[in-house]
């Protein structure tokens, strides 16, 4: 077992990437991702990590270079945030379609406009349908752990898909937390060498990224969508193996609070920890409340989520992204459709909170609970904490 060190989470993530002995890092700086890639370039400069660091001229090129590198057979990493992720958007679809196991950290930050460097999930929600495996971390230790797990998931030959590891910008990236590290040998024992299936190799020429004529486009999509669904079992396996290896156990969907609680919060990302404190407080005040934390956003763990919510009468889904003009926020949309047609469906409330770095406190969760319990949320979704004259 490794030692526990107080360290900024970004640096811990960089350490995880170094321990995974990546071959290529291609990255462009953007707040709040910068500390991760700065640290990695220092590792390369000092010889602590034997990798090519490509200081690309944009995020579009960061992802494009990552695609070229991964297609050549190199273990490839990149990281970005917000506008950078949006600039990658076009290539985000292409990496999974080519079945390239790139790992990317997304230091979640709100998208302009207005321009904001602070946290919400609008950046990754715009990438929801790209075909990436999308994992959300709740704290620093998870960010370290799941970064290593991400490589093993991505490179599993049943998967071969890129993985995005989401961590809330500033709230996690710039926080100093006690993190338990591992040494290189321990990581090597957990993470096998990457054995690519198809590469750009003159000894065995293949053509990658050909024109998807109408006779094949849908089949090409189906192939990688199926791989995405199949990755769920691999995620489960890898998390279990990690638990065995380190003693730190994770699941795609995790529950806390009262068992079979009447009112249940659903959270994703670092807000889970705030909600957890609120739930503990409420339980101490004899309230019937629980919480479900969603760690795997894509592929969506349908059965696990449904099982976790089966006893709830009221579900309060917290979305950290707005879907302007939509029925409700992105997470709530999933949960509502999960229960469509179900006679025992709970009442599902959606609260869109914490946009652009707005604080969401324990007290906020307690207030949300009171409103939900009293059935006082009438709209499809509520934008929490918007100051208004009315």
């Amino acid at each position, binding site marked *: 077992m490794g030692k526990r060190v107080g360290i900024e989470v970004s640096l811990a993530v960089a350490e995880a990437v170094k321990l995974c002995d990546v071959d290529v890092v291609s990255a462009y700086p953007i707040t709040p991702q910068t500390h991760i890639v700065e640290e990695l370039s220092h590792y390369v400069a000092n010889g602590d990590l034997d990798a090519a660091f490509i200081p690309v001229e944009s995020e579009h090129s960061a992802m494009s270079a990552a695609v*070229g*590198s991964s297609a050549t057979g190199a273990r490839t990493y990149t990281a970005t945030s917000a506008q950078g992720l949006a600039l990658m958007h076009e*290539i985000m679809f292409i990496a999974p379609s080519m079945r390239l196991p790139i790992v990317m950290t997304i230091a979640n930050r709100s998208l302009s406009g207005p321009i904001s460097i602070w946290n919400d999930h609008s950046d990754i929600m715009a990438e929801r349908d790209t075909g990436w495996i999308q994992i959300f971390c709740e704290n620093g230790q998870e960010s370290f752990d799941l970064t290593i797990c991400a490589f093993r998931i991505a490179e599993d030959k049943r998967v071969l898909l890129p993985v995005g590891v989401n961590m809330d910008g500033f709230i996690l990236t710039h926080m100093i937390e006690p993190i338990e590290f591992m040494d290189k040998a321990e990581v090597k024992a957990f993470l096998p060498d990457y054995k690519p299936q198809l590469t750009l190799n*003159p000894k065995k020429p293949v053509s990658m990224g050909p024109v998807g004529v109408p*006779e094949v486009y849908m089949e090409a999509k189906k192939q990688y969508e199926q791989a995405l669904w199949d990755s769920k079992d691999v995620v489960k396996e890898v998390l279990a193996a990690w638990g065995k290896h380190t003693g730190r156990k994770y699941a795609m969907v995790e529950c806390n609070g009262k068992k079979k609680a009447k009112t249940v919060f659903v959270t994703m990302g670092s807000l889970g920890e705030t909600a957890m404190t609120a739930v503990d407080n409420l339980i101490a005040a004899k309230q019937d409340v629980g919480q479900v934390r969603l760690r795997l956003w894509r592929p969506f763990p349908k059965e696990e989520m449904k099982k976790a919510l089966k006893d709830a009468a009221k579900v309060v889904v917290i979305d950290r992204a707005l879907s302007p003009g939509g029925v409700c926020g992105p997470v709530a949309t999933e949960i509502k459709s999960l229960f469509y047609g179900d006679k025992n469906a709970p009442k599902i409330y959606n609260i869109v909170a914490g946009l652009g770095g707005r604080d969401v406190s324990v007290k906020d969760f307690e207030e949300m609970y009171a409103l939900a319990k009293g059935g006082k949320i009438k709209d499809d979704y509520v934008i929490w904490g918007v100051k208004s004259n009315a």
Partner: protein
Amino acid sequence: MLRDVDLSGYQKITGKNVPRESMVASGHRACQGCVEVLAMGMVTRAVGKDCIVCNATGCMEIITSSFPQTAWKTPWIHVAFENAGAVASGIEAALTAMTRKGKRKGPLPTVLAFAGDGATADIGLQALSGALERGHKFIYVCLDNEAYMNTGVQRSSSTPFGATTTTSPAGKKSIGQSTRKKNLPAICAAHDIPYVATCSPAYHLDLMNKVRKAMAVDGPAYLHIYSVCPTGWGCKPEIGISLAKLAVETNVFPLYEVIGGRYNITKKVAKPKPVLDYLKVQRRFRHLAESDVAGIQKQVDDSWAYLNALAAAFPAPKEKGGAKEEE
């Protein structure tokens, strides 16, 4: 910005040892008389099998990779329109890192990027600039057919003055393309890279030897290849090569190289033909009045004078006899 360039590894092609195998197979779907695919094939003949090709979206990508068949005999990747420079950077970085780490063996294959003029001069200029500035060892080939042909002949910044296209149409109040062709070789040379050259498939040995020099230098190389498009230019398909020759003989498209900032005009035209000879065989210039042609002649003369002044001020060293010749 001048730098000394080591060309000692240059393996010259002569009339006797011209490599014959194109890495682009027959059965591709290019239009009849496409000089762009011919140029691409010539490049691959000079490079040989040990290469990785990275193709921007465009004519050459769609005509060679229409599922389930590929015309490519070498490894080939297409990602998107504007990122050939970036994808090639990733390939080169991966090869270098994996070689150093013992994950692959042997000499590095040539990394070759192909892109059209739109993918180079317009949408892909940033990715190209980044890749050149970072110094990746790769060859970027711009196949310039002077408009967006794949989407139906829309103007690009590489479309010449006076040409009518579907988005710079000639009309009562329009001469057609009203701007002058962007000077991409100059932009690339300004990146202080070891090798930049313009090529024409009508001068195939010159073209293939420029490819060989591009392979020999340590760092990025940029080749700008004039690529006749009978479909987009409105010329007869059989005249592709003679038109390419005419472009050189009229100084419309001069052939030169920039080696570490030093210029060498590789095809000096003693008595240039009038530009009119070049313009009149193409439908895209048919609307031009006599005075327009005179204006274009002046542009061509000015550009030619500028190039010659550069070559006089910064002459490239004479090619040494030491260049190895293949048998």
